[in-house]
């Protein structure tokens, strides 16, 4: 059973249910692979905590009370608070923090039987597109360790791609599940805003943040997403009263008659030729299966960059005001009074990208600027959401690239934050509209790096997206390819 780390969530779940392997055996195998923390993917590993969960799963498997994913390991992005592991959100300000409770998503996956392998590296407070903003060091892309894994869920994507975990959780505010999934050649989905509870997910931009699964296959993502979603009425006021769904139920349905909208704005001159070639080939495969391509327009695609980078920092500046060195987190050693304690604690605890976004957000919310920036951005946000509804009159799903290029070199954009912002152009529109979006491996581009196909669905159409991805994966093997030596 030396290849356990190459099995899908589904295959592992079957082996566990039929007792061909035990949860402890599976956990032990992954913990061994995690030794030495390859690619700097993990921020907290605690074998004892993992094995204790695995033993509890084995007991349930033995006495017939097992959940559907009992004993299958999962690793959580470090923005989900956990009782059994430290939670830092990739920030120095939360170094060593222990949450008194588990995030709803963590708890739901545990109830389904999943065993936590540890906590995954990410950009500080999920602010970044390359995982280079983590206070605990960058994550390497397993396909080329001199390149970024994408961000902000870079540790999640690298861990799955490198066979350190069969699946991981991520969060997506402006593309933080889809873009790293694309850069690392795995599958990831962000559901409709409000589907998954934000309780215990350390807030970055509350009106955009959504949790979702990352794994090798669409089927595995469907299994995790089914366990993660559902109303959390008393804990999250933005959680929607939409019942949990079995997202695997319609996998395999044929694509005859499916209309795929192709937004012209996603295929302009900013898109690199290698990415375009892979995306076109994936679309050709889908048409071979009976889908038709429909040209559409999302005219405010470019505007989504300023709109997002006003709304998200504004909400971040408010959310991050809780880090003041009083109830939890870092407190400066030398200060003169309460105000200087706040200022020094925050100055020492936050990294530069986080400070930049807090500053931008504070400015656009300050007296005299609110209407011109935050309110104007929220109005254009509605226009962007309306553009999608117009587009969905002509098509069932929308497809295009996830990012303009393959993963770039570590350090390449280090002194130019705006360069990273511009690379988010294709993921931001669906985030602003709160629509479900996913990335599916579509092939390889320059330097042999993976390319993802982005699929965007209408509200609550996750099952349809997952089916399109699943059908693509029945006909291609890009999701099964692995970096050398894995």
């Amino acid at each position: 059973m030396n290849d356990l780390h190459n099995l899908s969530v589904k295959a592992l779940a079957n082996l566990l249910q039929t007792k061909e392997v035990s949860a402890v055996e599976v956990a032990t195998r992954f913990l061994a692979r995690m030794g030495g923390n390859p690619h700097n993917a993990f921020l907290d590993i605690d074998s004892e905590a993992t094995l204790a969960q695995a033993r509890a799963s084995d007991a349930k498997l033995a006495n017939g009370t097992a959940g559907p994913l009992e004993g299958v390991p999962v690793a959580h992005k470090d923005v989900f608070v956990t009782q059994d592991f430290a939670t830092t959100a990739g920030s120095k300000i939360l170094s060593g923090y222990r949450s008194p409770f588990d995030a709803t998503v963590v708890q739901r996956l545990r109830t389904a039987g999943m065993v936590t392998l540890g906590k995954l590296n990410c950009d500080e407070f999920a602010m970044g597109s390359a995982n280079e903003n983590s206070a605990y060091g960058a994550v390497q892309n397993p396909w080329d360790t001199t390149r970024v894994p994408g961000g902000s869920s870079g540790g999640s994507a690298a861990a799955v791609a490198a066979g350190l975990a069969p699946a991981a959780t991520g969060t997506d505010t402006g593309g933080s599940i889809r873009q790293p999934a694309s850069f690392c050649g795995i599958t990831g989905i962000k559901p409709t805003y409000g589907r998954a509870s934000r309780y215990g997910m350390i807030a970055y931009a509350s009106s955009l943040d959504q949790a979702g699964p990352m794994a090798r296959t669409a089927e595995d993502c469907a299994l995790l997403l089914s366990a993660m979603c559902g109303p959390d009425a008393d804990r999250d006021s933005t959680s929607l009263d939409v019942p949990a769904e079995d997202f695997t139920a319609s996998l395999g349905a044929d694509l005859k008659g499916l209309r795929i909208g192709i937004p012209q704005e996603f295929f302009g001159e900013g898109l690199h030729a290698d990415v375009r070639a892979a995306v076109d080939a994936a679309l050709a495969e889908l048409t071979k299966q009976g889908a038709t391509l429909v040209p559409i327009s999302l005219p405010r695609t470019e505007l989504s960059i300023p709109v997002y980078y006003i709304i998200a920092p504004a909400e971040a500046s408010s959310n991050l005001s809780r880090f003041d060195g009083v109830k939890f987190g870092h407190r400066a050693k030398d200060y003169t009074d309460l105000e200087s304690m706040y200022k020094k604690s925050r100055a020492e605890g936050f990294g530069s990208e986080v400070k930049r976004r807090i500053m931008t957000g504070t400015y656009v919310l300050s007296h005299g600027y609110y209407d011109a920036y935050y309110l104007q951005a929220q109005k254009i946000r509605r226009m962007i959401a309306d553009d999608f509804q117009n587009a969905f009159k002509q098509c069932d799903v929308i497809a295009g690239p996830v990012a303009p290029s393959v993963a770039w070199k570590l350090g390449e954009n280090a002194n130019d934050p705006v360069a990273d912002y511009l690379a988010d152009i294709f993921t931001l529109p669906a985030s602003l509209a709160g629509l479900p979006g996913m990335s599916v491996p579509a092939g390889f581009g320059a330097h042999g790096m993976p390319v993802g196909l982005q699929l965007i669905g209408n509200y609550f159409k996750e099952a349809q997206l997952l089916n399109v991805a699943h059908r693509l994966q029945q006909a291609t093997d890009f999701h099964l390819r692995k970096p050398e030596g894995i």
Partner: protein
Amino acid sequence: MSLTPQDIDRIANLARLELKPEESERMLAQINGFFGIVNAMQAVDTSGVQPLAHPVAAIQDIALRLREDVVSEPNNREANQRSAPAVERGLFLVPKVIE
């Protein structure tokens, strides 16, 4: 529109961030660089458009829910204070505020 060093000082104070001089300088250049891409937003005619807060409100009415006003959390003081920087007799300690 361009921010000045005084704007940066004012915002840093509002945000309760102590910035070193070289940090303020870099921040000024970077934030002004960023506002270069924000200007495109100002040209959009949004008259009559309602701001969108919960994105799903684009297709249906969304009312933020209130839960019943009942005690639902047990006393968990010890766990809640486990990560606090300074605690004494169950209280969070801060520097003296009132002389």
